[in-house]
């Protein structure tokens, strides 16, 4: 494998982008990444998107996006792994450049969720239709069961969950791309409407439109495009049973652990070597489970991590400095790339107010469904 670097990044603001469609958002993010790198050509592009088909009735996104980017002719393909679609698109691009097959590859993620679709039902297609959805479960319901299991097994409290939202909103308030640029208090979180007990409204990531894109090339070509490339040192992808009920321990996300272990092994480092991480906090409980599965904290000790400041900027392992899915927003297919961009900015020292000091190694973890797929990337400043 050749060494691979990210040399440019672009993304839209995240939020309710009523006047932008799927293609408009893609073009804004992709052209942003290309101009960031000063690149005027592409060998290939990957578009991560969970469900253009069900959200806006549009499939066949590879050629559509290449066309509207003014790159008709390049190899272009749509990648899907539910909410991990963006992270998996990055992995495909990484493998393609690493293998020597292509030099300049764009990895993008997009999702248009605010266009009249029944969002809850579209998202539920990422769960097991026959074993779960037919019986009426929704994603807030599945993660509520994970939260219940975690509470029962490890004594995690509603207040622990609330602090994850408080911490991520505190970070997100400093991110100009975030959907909700405001802080919340633990009291506000704990008084918000119940969605699926014990999860309340402010434990849930929002419905978001957005797109993000990064440009990859071989590390030895990177200086042609930027003085500060960020190296992708490892990727790890893993799967778990689709249905939550089929797992030995619903409070532990096995695919997250496996994808993390694979990436750490490839990078030849451990969780303690990571300076900054973006993890998939689609619900507050998810962040708690992810930091445990990745080994940032011991199993069962994720609950108090946000309240104790361990995962805040300035803490032992700053997690979701972008605001996470909770505050920055969660346009499902775009999330994996947006996480990558946050790490890219952090490792280049460009994160402004939310900069983690001396950040050299970063990690991004993106998952699909209730954790049936998880993809981890490890990055290093050059």
């Amino acid at each position, binding site marked *: 494998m050749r060494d691979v670097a990210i040399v440019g990044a672009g993304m839209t603001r995240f939020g*309710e982008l*009523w*006047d932008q469609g799927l293609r408009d958002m893609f073009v804004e993010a992709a052209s942003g990444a290309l101009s960031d790198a000063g690149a005027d050509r592409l060998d290939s592009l990957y578009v991560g998107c969970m469900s253009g088909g069900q959200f806006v009735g549009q499939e066949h996104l590879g050629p559509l996006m290449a066309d509207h980017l003014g790159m008709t002719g390049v190899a272009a393909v749509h990648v899907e792994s539910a909410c991990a679609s963006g992270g998996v698109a990055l992995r495909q691009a990484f493998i393609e450049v690493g293998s020597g097959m292509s030099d300049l590859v764009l990895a993008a993620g997009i999702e248009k969720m*605010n266009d*009249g679709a029944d969002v809850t039902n579209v998202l539920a297609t990422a769960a097991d239709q026959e074993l779960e959805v037919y019986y009426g479960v929704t994603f807030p319901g599945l993660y509520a069961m994970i939260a219940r299991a975690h509470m029962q097994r490890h004594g995690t409290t509603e207040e622990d969950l609330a602090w994850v939202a408080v911490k991520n909103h505190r970070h997100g308030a400093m991110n100009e791309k975030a959907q909700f640029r405001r802080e919340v208090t633990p009291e506000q979180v704990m008084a918000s*409407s119940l969605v699926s007990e014990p999860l309340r409204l402010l434990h849930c990531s929002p419905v978001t439109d957005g797109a993000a894109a990064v440009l990859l090339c071989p590390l030895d070509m990177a200086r042609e495009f930027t003085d500060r490339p960020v190296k992708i040192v490892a990727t790890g992808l893993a799967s778990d049973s689709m249905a939550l009920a089929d797992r030995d321990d619903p409070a532990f996300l096995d695919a997250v652990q496996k994808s993390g272990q694979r990436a750490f092994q490839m990078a030849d480092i451990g969780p303690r070597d990571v300076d900054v991480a973006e993890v998939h906090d689609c619900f507050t409980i998810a962040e708690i489970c992810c930091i445990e599965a990745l080994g940032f904290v011991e199993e069962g000790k994720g609950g108090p991590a946000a309240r104790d400041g361990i995962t805040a900027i300035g803490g032992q392992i700053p997690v979701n400095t972008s605001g996470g899915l909770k505050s920055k927003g969660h346009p499902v297919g775009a999330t994996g790339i947006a996480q990558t961009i946050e790490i890219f900015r952090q490792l280049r020292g460009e994160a402004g107010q939310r900069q983690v000091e001396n950040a050299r190694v970063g990690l991004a973890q993106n998952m699909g469904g209730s954790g049936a797929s998880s993809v981890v990337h490890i990055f290093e400043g050059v």
Partner: protein
Amino acid sequence: MLPTEEVRMAGIAGYGAYIPRKRIRTEEIARQWGKDPGVIERGLLLEEKSVPGFDEDTITISVAAGHGAIDRAGVDPQKIGALYIGSESHPYAVKPSGTVVAEALGIGPEVHIADFEFACKAGTEAMFVALGLVEAGRVQYAMAIGADTSQGAPGDALEFSASAGGAAYVFGVDHVVAEVVETYSYTSDTPDFWRREGEFYPRHGGRFTGEPAYFKHVLTASRAIMEKTGLTAGDFAYAVFHMPNGKFPLTAGKQLGFREEQLETGWVVPTMGNTYSGSSPTGLAAILDIAEPDDLILITSFGSGAGSDSFVLKATRRLPEVQGLAPTVRSMLEGSRQYVTYGEYAKFRGKIIAND
């Protein structure tokens, strides 16, 4: 250009409103659907809403409001040359509401009549056209009504707001109680809320009905009419905006620079609900009930689909003389009320499937 004649300063000669007596509390609806009433009351700023009785519909509401308008105008109904009713709930799909209302009010048969539809701005639409005919000198007086028995599907957020009521306005160049200083309309193809032919309840685009629909049109129209007249928020005694819930009009008003004191008089939605085409016209009637000569008033409606009509009005010395000639909006809102249960409400609104 034609030689200019003397400018005819047309305006509102008389106004009237009607709100049914029956009410249902937000709490009662929330309880029915297992929702937290506190969250709805705080989120939408709605306490209760009016409910039409079995014998009330857009026509009866229009007649009741129309009586008040004629009484306050003090004009012979025979001199009203046009009658327009804006509503989302005309009792008939084919056959005008206006003919029944005209007959009941003693208007016509020498009268031009049309029923208007433009979601929640059909009422100000009627006002706009009535005003134009009077300004043109085509008719001596014209009456415009906005009235609705609003629909909201069971369990939909609309059910907390959709209510019944309306207001009627007689326009003329004499007997004027409020001059129309300026008008402005802003319209775009924005499908935020609709009801197709034959459908019982409207559908809507959820949060899409907010920023790109309501706020875009209401704020643009209001800013444009202020620019056109050279007025700023501070120049107005009162302002009223379409009231789909309690929150939207206050947010819009504050963004335009209005203070709560300027907004609260016309803000009738917390206890009336959203009377769709009758919403901002009824809010305006509540303002005219207490306004004083020379007060400037801004009204901006909003109709889904979407558009806004803005009017800048200036109260005349005649206004205080007519305020007591018909029931005021607050007297109907705060007067004798009959609270209904959700079951009774479902019966009155025809939500129960029965044989026959």
